[in-house]
């Protein structure tokens, strides 16, 4: 069918099956990949376009319905001369785009509103944007950008030496607000074959494959385990336990069994029941209790007791010290599987180029991908090229392989480009999750409220495969006593295999789960002694000069006390307001809670170096070659700002080459809040290196000023001005490396696990509907010691986005295999759930970090759930032992509490 319509103001025609989704027609046939697809089910709003000036999900519109109508997409927002619309400029200036995958949908939804209501209120903005999910920003800056769209906000253009600390617009922002940024599914060659993965419907079982020949006749290939040269992958060099394609045994629902490779229409037309697989399901091992039961079936045959690993930290004599405590509090806390729910599903494509394989993919870790693909495909690492596309959110979930080995193997065998894009439910079923945890915590303090002893055991459900389980189980014991000075510590972490989805890396590596436990206990101890909850924490806060439980002396940059001091006036105001509200006797009750955290930056007691390069070409092109992948958090911009000031030229003069393993050096993975601290320090060193070379060439002193115009580099040293003609010097390259100094932890967990730590405290104000058990978070004030805010807008963005995820962890997110594998049963916070957030940045410089900066990627999330849950306790007396605290769970706890109170009074 031929469809004639108006597309961004211009007549357009399209031909194809009329049932084709508008989103698919725009992206696949009309070349407008600015419209993103996050779910194909109307649940996420990423594909929002205007149809006759009304916002619709273009994944829910048939092309047959578009005849004669007007379609507007993000590509039509800017003027024909490229001038950005005011709304787009406002998104840039406010930092409203992080990864950018929801940005086109947000922009189109806001456009509908602003045409009708040029100066909307916050409620109107929320109503208009309520149908678009964002997982990065916490919505705060998006709301600000829409509210401020009518006013033009100046764009910061810092001069040489002034980039660090400036609210520089993100260097990749223009592409994100115009729809031109290319994500994993956006640049697939038209002639690529497609993969559809056939997955296990069973959590545990065996299977045999029938005759695949009929399918193979319809397709280019049907890949099985036999086609995988080395059929095991995993994060750790000695634990390659996850098959690319299952070999007769499946260990979780959603595990990959077969890859159908062929023309897109052909692979999508084959239903799972046409694939000859004979299943023999077995009763799955689900949950920690099942995995640790006597005679529990083994998830992996060579893993006795289903144990992945365990270990802990011992300092002093905790068991003995409890005896002398004036107050002791303890409790057990449980968390669920949590889904990353990045709005961009896993996607990528591969191409064989001679004896090399090139994989374009959305990833957080191109160099680990390169080495893992080399291992799986039995190639040398130099024969693998990973080209990261823009990454539409990661949060730890794109640290593990997804489509990479499948497209790589298929493209290698078939010698044709091969693509794979996960569906939303496939993304949710197949990829890693946050570890469910059961944490038993016991703390004791003296009569002044000084902590004396702590004993915390954290047991994790690591799912079917190891993934990042060891990282979680190692990191948590170091952090489980919280950001406090505790002389006698015993902490323990252990992870068990189950037939759940592989639990992997998710923003915080287990620390958010542990924080729920230690912060609840801090509240209880403070309450027992009648000490204010904030002051109790302030009394115990780790400070510079203190020794941690691993025996590390914190020489610098331990700013928790400053964070708490900054929160003090907010804490008092919030408590006054809550008390005044509660005095009215409404059925709604307000509460105020506080959560604290610390977080070691980078790998735990393991080398995690970064290498950065800056090139200055004979033509005068200044390029930062960064292997650090920007997954939305802003490292492209942060690295540029740091490099610019180290070198002494304006950030605006930098071009950027990022991620490509052929063109950059290894800057490690984007995880563990390490890029600003580790790669940033390498970028700083690279800038210094290039500067030294230039100063030597000009025979100039260290304070000389540089300027670059075309191929002419001018060096001003006091009165002396020297011009360097770059055409004659050849390419200048500055290089820098950094590997944070750590030491291994001994059998008692003693050593230096991290070179520096981030600290933070957050206050949550909530309103609880006592009758319904619903919780509305009214406001969050977040104070974070970031060492130095390289770019305050981006730092706030990380904190706000982390808070939204922490709110989800506390109140609504629970992944249940087979039951919440979509974005309408699995709930993440919408624009209406995230409250106003105030960020307070504390800058207690870390001497090792670039300009004193530490990381902030994960810390934003960690204190949020504890603060919210503490506020719920304040409001209701209910201490949540299990999250998410869904309305029915809170209501049940309230009833139990009331019944207990009645019994207690003898009624």
């Amino acid at each position, binding site marked *: 069918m031929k469809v004639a319509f108006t597309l961004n103001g211009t007549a357009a025609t399209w031909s194809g099956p009329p*049932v084709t989704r508008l989103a698919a027609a725009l992206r696949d046939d009309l070349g407008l990949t600015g419209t993103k697809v996050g779910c194909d*089910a109307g649940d996420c709003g990423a594909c929002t376009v205007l149809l006759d000036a009304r916002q619709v999900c273009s994944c829910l519109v048939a092309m047959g319905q578009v005849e004669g109508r007007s379609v507007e997409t993000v590509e039509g927002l800017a003027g024909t001369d490229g001038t950005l619309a005011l709304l787009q400029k406002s998104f840039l200036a406010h930092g409203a785009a992080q990864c950018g995958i929801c940005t086109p949908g947000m922009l189109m939804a806001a456009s509908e509103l602003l045409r009708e209501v040029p100066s909307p209120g916050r409620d109107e903005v929320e*109503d208009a944007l309520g149908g678009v999910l964002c997982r990065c920003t916490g919505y705060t800056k998006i709301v600000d950008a829409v509210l401020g769209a009518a006013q033009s906000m100046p764009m910061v253009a810092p001069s040489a030496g002034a980039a660090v600390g400036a609210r520089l617009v993100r260097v990749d922002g223009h592409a994100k607000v115009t729809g031109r940024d290319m994500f994993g599914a956006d640049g697939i060659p038209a002639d690529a074959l497609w993969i559809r993965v056939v997955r296990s419907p069973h959590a545990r079982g065996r299977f045999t494959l029938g005759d695949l020949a009929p399918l193979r006749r319809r397709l280019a290939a049907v890949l099985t385990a036999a086609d995988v040269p080395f059929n095991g992958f995993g994060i750790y060099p000695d634990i390659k336990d996850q098959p690319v394609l299952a070999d007769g045994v499946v260990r979780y629902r959603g595990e990959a069994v077969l890859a159908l490779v062929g023309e897109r229409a052909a692979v*999508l037309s084959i239903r799972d029941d046409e694939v000859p697989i004979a299943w023999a399901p077995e009763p799955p091992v689900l949950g920690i209790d099942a995995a640790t039961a006597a005679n529990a079936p083994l998830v992996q045959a060579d893993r006795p007791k289903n144990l992945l690993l365990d270990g802990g930290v011992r300092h002093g004599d905790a068991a003995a010290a409890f005896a002398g405590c004036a107050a002791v509090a303890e409790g057990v806390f449980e968390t669920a599987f949590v889904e990353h729910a990045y709005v961009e599903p896993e996607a990528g494509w591969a191409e064989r180029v001679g004896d090399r394989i090139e994989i374009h993919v959305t990833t957080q870790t191109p160099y680990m991908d390169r080495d893992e693909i080399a291992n799986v495909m039995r190639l040398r690492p130099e024969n693998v090229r990973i080209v990261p596309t823009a990454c539409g959110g990661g949060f730890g979930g794109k640290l593990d392989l997804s489509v990479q080995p499948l497209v790589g193997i298929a493209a290698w065998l078939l010698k044709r480009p091969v693509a794979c894009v996960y569906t939303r439910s496939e993304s949710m079923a197949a990829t890693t999750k946050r570890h469910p945890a059961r944490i038993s915590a016991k703390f004791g303090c003296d009569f002044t409220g000084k902590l004396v002893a702590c004993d915390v055991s954290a047991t994790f459900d690591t799912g079917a495969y190891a993934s990042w389980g060891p990282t979680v189980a190692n990191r948590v014991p170091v952090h489980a006593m919280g950001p406090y000075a505790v002389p006698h510590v015993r902490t323990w972490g252990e992870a068990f295999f189950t037939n759940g989805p592989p639990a992997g890396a998710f923003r915080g590596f287990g620390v958010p789960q542990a924080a729920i436990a230690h912060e609840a206990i801090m509240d209880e101890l403070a309450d027992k002694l009648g000490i204010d909850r904030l002051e109790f924490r302030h009394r115990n806060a780790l400070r510079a000069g203190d020794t941690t439980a691993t025996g590390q002396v914190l020489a610098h940059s331990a700013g928790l006390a400053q964070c708490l001091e900054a929160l003090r006036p907010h804490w008092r105001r919030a408590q006054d307001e809550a008390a005044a509200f509660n005095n009215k006797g409404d059925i709604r009750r307000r509460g105020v809670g506080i959560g604290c955290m610390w977080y070691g930056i980078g790998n735990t007691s393991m080398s995690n170096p970064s290498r950065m390069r800056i090139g200055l070409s004979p033509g005068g092109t200044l390029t930062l070659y960064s292997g650090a992948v920007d997954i939305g958090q802003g490292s492209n911009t942060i690295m540029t700002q740091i490099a610019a000031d180290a070198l002494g030229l304006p950030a605006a003069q930098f071009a950027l080459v990022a991620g490509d393993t052929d063109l950059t050096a290894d800057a490690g993975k984007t995880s563990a809040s390490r890029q600003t601290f580790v790669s940033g320090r390498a970028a700083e060193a690279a800038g210094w290196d290039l500067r030294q070379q230039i100063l030597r060439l000009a025979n100039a002193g260290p304070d000389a000023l540089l300027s670059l115009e075309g191929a002419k580099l001018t060096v001003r040293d006091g009165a002396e001005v020297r011009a360097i003609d770059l055409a004659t010097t050849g390419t200048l390259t500055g290089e820098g490396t950094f590997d944070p100094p750590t030491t291994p932890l001994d059998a008692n967990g003693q050593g230096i696990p991290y070179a520096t730590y981030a600290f933070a405290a957050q206050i949550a104000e909530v309103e609880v509907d006592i009758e319904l058990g619903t919780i509305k978070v009214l406001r969050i004030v977040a104070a974070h010691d970031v060492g130095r805010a390289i770019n305050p807008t981006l730092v706030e963005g990380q904190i706000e986005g982390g808070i939204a995820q922490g709110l989800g962890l506390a109140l609504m997110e629970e992944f249940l295999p087979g039951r919440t594998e979509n974005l309408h049963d699995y709930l993440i916070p919408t624009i209406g759930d995230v409250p106003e957030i105030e960020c307070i940045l504390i800058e207690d410089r870390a001497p090792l970090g670039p300009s004193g900066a530490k990381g902030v990627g994960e810390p934003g999330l960690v204190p949020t759930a504890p603060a919210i849950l503490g506020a719920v306790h304040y409001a209701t007396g209910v201490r949540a032992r299990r999250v998410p605290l869904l309305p*029915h769970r809170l209501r049940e706890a309230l009833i139990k509490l009331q019944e207990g109170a009645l019994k207690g009074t003898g009624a």
Partner: protein
Amino acid sequence: MGDYVRPSRLEEALSALARPHTVLAGGTDFYPARVGRTIDEDILDIGAIPALRGISSASTGWRLGATTTWSEMIEADLPPLFDGLKQAAREIGGRQIQNAGTLAGNLCNASPAADGVPCLLVLDADIEIASSTATRRVPLDQFITGVRRTALMPDELVVAIHVPRPAREARSAFLKLGARRYLVISIAMATATLEIADGHVAAARIAVGSCSAVAQRLVALEAALVGARLDRQLAARVDPTHLEPLSPIDDVRGSAGYRRESVLVLLRRLLAGFAP
């Protein structure tokens, strides 16, 4: 690849249904059920039929065209009788879904959690159904027969929803309980229409959704309200025994016990909200 027909006249649509077609209107339920696979069934797109669209009124009542969208409902100039349906419309999905999803689609999808169903139940709605040979009217409570099941025959189409004009002043209201704001499937919902005479309830229609396979009227509660003064004490007339028609289940959104309890809260608040 299946057929795709998009007629502009109702008669053409009805004759197309001589053989089975999947009916497509707003697409908000159609496409989510077809993610990641080829769509090869025969489709009847009823989105271009003017006769199915729009809201009109007569002395006897209102006719809501089958493909009226939630946004059109929200924006329509209608008396307070429709306030509950409008409140529900604002709570359905996000603005995108409201702009595309249709009233009849919500009914034909027959989800236990359909926000539109209890609202139309308390409006005493009749469903106008047509085939190429006949038309008939079915009361809504007989139209939806179970989870994802309706009385619609394969050759039939919902043409309109008819809402009778109450004899007296009438108002309605709706309350939804969900675990987040926007884009949320109801844990429970409650809606009421009260007909008012001399400051007293002359007639009441109450319905609850997401607490049974099909949204249910609470006739015992309705009876208990008749004659009551229209003030906040209305809420006190709600009694747990009134929930007898409900059969809530445990699911990912909430427990059966919680649903029972929260419906009582919703009903009390809903009724208290009618007080002047």
